[in-house]
């Protein structure tokens, strides 16, 4: 079983985002970066599949700046076998550009399964996984919450509005991981030490032009602090008045 997991370096969810002077990118100074949380499910799933099979290889691939090596090493510390950094300094926001660069790396890799997180928490595109599948002409299951592998085929479950969708598909395939697919492991200390010795190949890539241009980034409006109008039933009239005249929601 040879599995590729495509991972992304993203700002930590706790980070306060500042917009850079150009108005179209974020100011990365002082920002803590982490492995995209949805990609953690993908890495964990790959490791479990390899462990269950008793053999195989888990390769993590990231497209990003040199600093993304740290993100790759996080996945290596969890247990992945080797990493590939497709090194590109520009922060790419067009998912099709990313997908094409990944496909160039994945195409001749001989992977039985290519895993992604269902989305990256920084740009929320939900797009790279399905685009890669399309370009590779492979079946794609997005937002999988359960996976069962059989001989040459697999079954996955997706949590859809109000129910569960069960899909069967042939391998090789592309799958994007949803929360709940598994409980990702912590990188144990020995894993962190071992990761320093695992192969990590850095391949500079030249990105193709994309069809999408980011014009502007804006922060959500600052939320005003709440106000306590009173306590108990006596406060209800004041609350209704405020909801009508100030918030204008009634």
């Amino acid at each position, binding site marked *: 079983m040879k599995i590729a997991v495509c991972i992304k370096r993203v700002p930590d969810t706790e980070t306060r985002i500042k917009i850079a002077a150009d108005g179209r990118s974020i100011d990365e100074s002082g920002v803590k970066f982490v492995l995209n949380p949805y990609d953690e499910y993908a890495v964990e799933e790959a490791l479990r599949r390899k462990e269950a099979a008793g053999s195989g290889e888990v390769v993590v691939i990231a497209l990003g700046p040199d600093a993304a090596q740290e993100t790759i090493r996080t996945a290596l510390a969890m247990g992945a076998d080797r990493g590939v950094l497709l090194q590109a300094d520009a922060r790419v926001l067009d998912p099709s550009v990313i997908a094409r660069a990944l496909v160039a790396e994945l195409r001749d890799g001989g992977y039985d399964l290519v895993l992604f997180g269902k989305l990256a928490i920084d740009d929320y595109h939900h797009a790279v996984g399905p685009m890669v599948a399309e370009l590779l002409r492979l079946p794609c299951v997005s937002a999988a919450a359960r996976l069962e592998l059989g001989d040459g085929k697999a079954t996955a479950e997706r949590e859809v509005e109000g129910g569960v969708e069960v899909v069967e598909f042939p391998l090789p395939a592309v799958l994007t991981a949803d929360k709940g697919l598994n409980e990702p492991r*912590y990188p*144990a*200390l*020995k894993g962190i*030490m071992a990761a*320093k010795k695992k192969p990590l190949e850095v391949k500079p890539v030249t990105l193709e032009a994309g069809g999408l241009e980011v014009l502007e980034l804006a922060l959500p409006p600052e939320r005003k602090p709440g106000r306590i109008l009173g306590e108990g039933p006596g406060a209800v009239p004041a609350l209704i008045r405020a909801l009508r005249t100030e918030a204008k929601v009634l």
Partner: protein
Amino acid sequence: MPFQGVDFYDTESLFAEDERAVRDTVRRWVDEAVIPIIGDHYVQGTFPLHLAPKMAELGLFGANLPEEYGCAGLNNVAYGLIMQELERGDSGVRSFASVQGALVMYPIYAFGSEEQKQRWLPRLAGGEAIGCFGLTEPDFGSNPGGMITTARETADGWVLNGAKMWITNGSTAQVAIIWAKTGALDDPQSIRGFIVPTDTKGFSAKDQKGKLSLRASDTSELVLQDVKVGRDALLPKSGGVKSPLMCLTQARYGIAWGAVGAAMACFAEAVSYAKTRVIFDRPIGGFQIQQARLADMLTEITKAQLLCVQLGRLKDRGSATPEQVSLAKRNNVDMATEVARETRRLLGANGILAEYQAMRHLANLESVYTYEGTHDIHTLVLGQAITGLDAFR
């Protein structure tokens, strides 16, 4: 929200990537596994022993010892960051790991035979055996050289007799490192270390009742009555009171970092409370008195952090002295106790509750202030280093 740490001087840039990765793993685990349960254990007076297998799985025991014995093989800075995060949870959890790693695994590593290392270190690293360290006695605390526990050589081994007090993990342990005199009672050079399985006949442990500090930790009294052990129980390279003191230097190093963790936990609590508690129509953080409290805390934590990083780098270079470790233990524990106390006060009545952390840390740190060489004893260590004059006796 995961813990953010305190970092006013960009200490982050002083850590290597793997050191940060180690810290973040432990930080996350402490957030998820320790913080939510520790208050209840503290009130009940129980050690959360269920945490031990996971601590072993993460590799937290003896993490700065080599990989060939099943340990993580980390440098001393990464090891220190582990202690920082554990004590941010609770001094009891850090104590458990300190004893296992620095006071049980380290002496076996430093003074044991190859056979003893092979036999014990992987089991201790894997948490299959828990250890304790028996040095202090009812009448010999700051002066362990005076101990009256004895080990007498027989035809096929040793017989140990004596009592040990205040022994962390004492009732939990499967194995005890016992320090005893093999020669005359007035000869501290005859002190040697022994690996004693706690199920050996004549060995008993009793929980110390009535603690108001380190409540989420097992502190016990050990009694050794004609405890017979084989020749292979002796740590062959141990010799003199210097040997247990070398172990204490290892543990104290971790404590210096641990204290920073406890202080960070309190500081974060103080800041959050100061910004949200509204009295006289504004957050108490808007009053100068509380700002002075917070400014002092941040200053002292920052100094202590920088002390730790440099001490760790010196230790990794092999040049850290016991006196440098004394300075850091003395300063940082005292600092953390002050931060905990000021946080407790800033929190007003809420500050006395187990629901908040400050008073638990404050009470814990009073033990940390006393064990591993009291604050006073480290003052004398530094005094001697400065003047060359011994003021101990």
